């Protein structure tokens, strides 16, 4: 009888141990999946690169004004930019990106003074010494002039893409840079700059550029001191 009881208990405890093993496996799989997902999450593994890279994960935002050199007098232009990697971004050298480039010259210009294009590609270089807010770096955004409902300056042959280069060198906007060019090459991450117009812009006049490896989650601390440069009307 005793033997029978033992033989009845042995399979029972085996089953329990088996189930415990299954549960452990399930937990391990779930946890490891999270780890794998974490590895592709921006900010966890995006390394600070030393050059503009189509594979670097980052965000570029900016708004402000620049002075455009022109004759008989310089022109004031406002800009707003956004660039980010799409969900499921694959680091395969194509530099796919989402975002928008808005650029508005505040004066009449024969070729057209409006730029409103979606961002298709982006290259990013994150600063090796970011600000306390975790921002800093450089980025190139490539917009597409061939899509519907976009605006680009007139040209013959027609401009097919817009190339924006921005630098984030400080939290106050001082020494940040915004440059824009218009190109006859189609939009791509490796745009042939020989097909582009001369760059407009340069050091920003007001506003700022922010380049960061990942969303801050609203934790970024804004500068509490001078940010706007003194201007002469």
């Amino acid at each position: 009888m005793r033997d029978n009881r033992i033989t009845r208990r042995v399979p029972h405890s085996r089953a329990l141990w088996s189930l415990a093993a299954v549960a452990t496996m399930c937990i391990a799989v779930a946890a490891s999946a999270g780890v794998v997902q974490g590895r592709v999450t921006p900010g966890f593994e995006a390394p600070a690169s030393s050059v503009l890279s189509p594979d670097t994960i980052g965000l570029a935002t900016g708004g402000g004004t620049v002075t455009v050199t022109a004759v008989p007098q310089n022109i004031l232009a406002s800009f707003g930019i956004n660039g980010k990697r799409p969900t499921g971004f694959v680091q395969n050298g194509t530099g796919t990106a989402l975002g928008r480039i808005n650029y508005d010259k505040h004066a009449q210009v024969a070729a057209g003074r409006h730029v409103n294009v979606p961002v298709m590609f982006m290259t990013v270089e994150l600063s090796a010494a970011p600000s306390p807010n975790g921002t800093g770096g450089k980025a190139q955004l490539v917009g597409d002039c061939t899509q519907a409902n976009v605006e680009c300056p007139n040209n013959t042959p027609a401009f097919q893409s817009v190339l924006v280069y921005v630098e984030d060198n400080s939290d106050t906007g001082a020494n940040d840079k915004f440059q824009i060019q218009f190109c006859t090459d189609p939009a791509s991450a490796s745009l042939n700059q020989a097909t582009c117009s001369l760059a407009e812009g340069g050091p920003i006049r007001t506003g700022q550029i922010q380049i960061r490896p990942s969303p801050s989650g609203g934790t970024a601390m804004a500068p509490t001191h001078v940010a706007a440069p003194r201007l002469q009307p």
Partner: protein
Amino acid sequence: MTKRTLSALFATSILLAVALALPSHGNQAAAVVGNSIVTGAGAGVFPAGASFNSIELAGGTFGIGAQISSTGSADGTLEAQFTGTSLIGLSQWITINGWITSGTSNPDGSVTLNGTSTLDMGDGTPPTGGLALVVNAGPTGITLTVGGTTLPTLPKSDGWVINE
């Protein structure tokens, strides 16, 4: 009895696995990219009578680049510059630089962005930093609230404010 125990253990293991898997998925969604992109650059003319800090406002320009995440946190910047005339008739440029830290998309297509700003009245006094900023921007114009004071709405007559 054994079957019940087995079922309970099995259910517990599945629940544990699901519970562990879900939070990591949620964190990833919040960390990767924002759900909304707000871009703008443009200009406008104030209606007659618009004023701020005794400056009669004439017009203004703006530039916006912000990305709002699914959690409501946001990253980006706003810059606005309003031109006006002081009480003694001098031209004055008022500049507002803002860091955006949170935002929401509104049903009417506009967005409300919150952050911290620096205000330069352009009259020679030092700029004031650390002011709470609320921006309401949409296809028709932008309204700024700086340090609790709401400035007149700048109707947009040129450029864009695009929330996508």
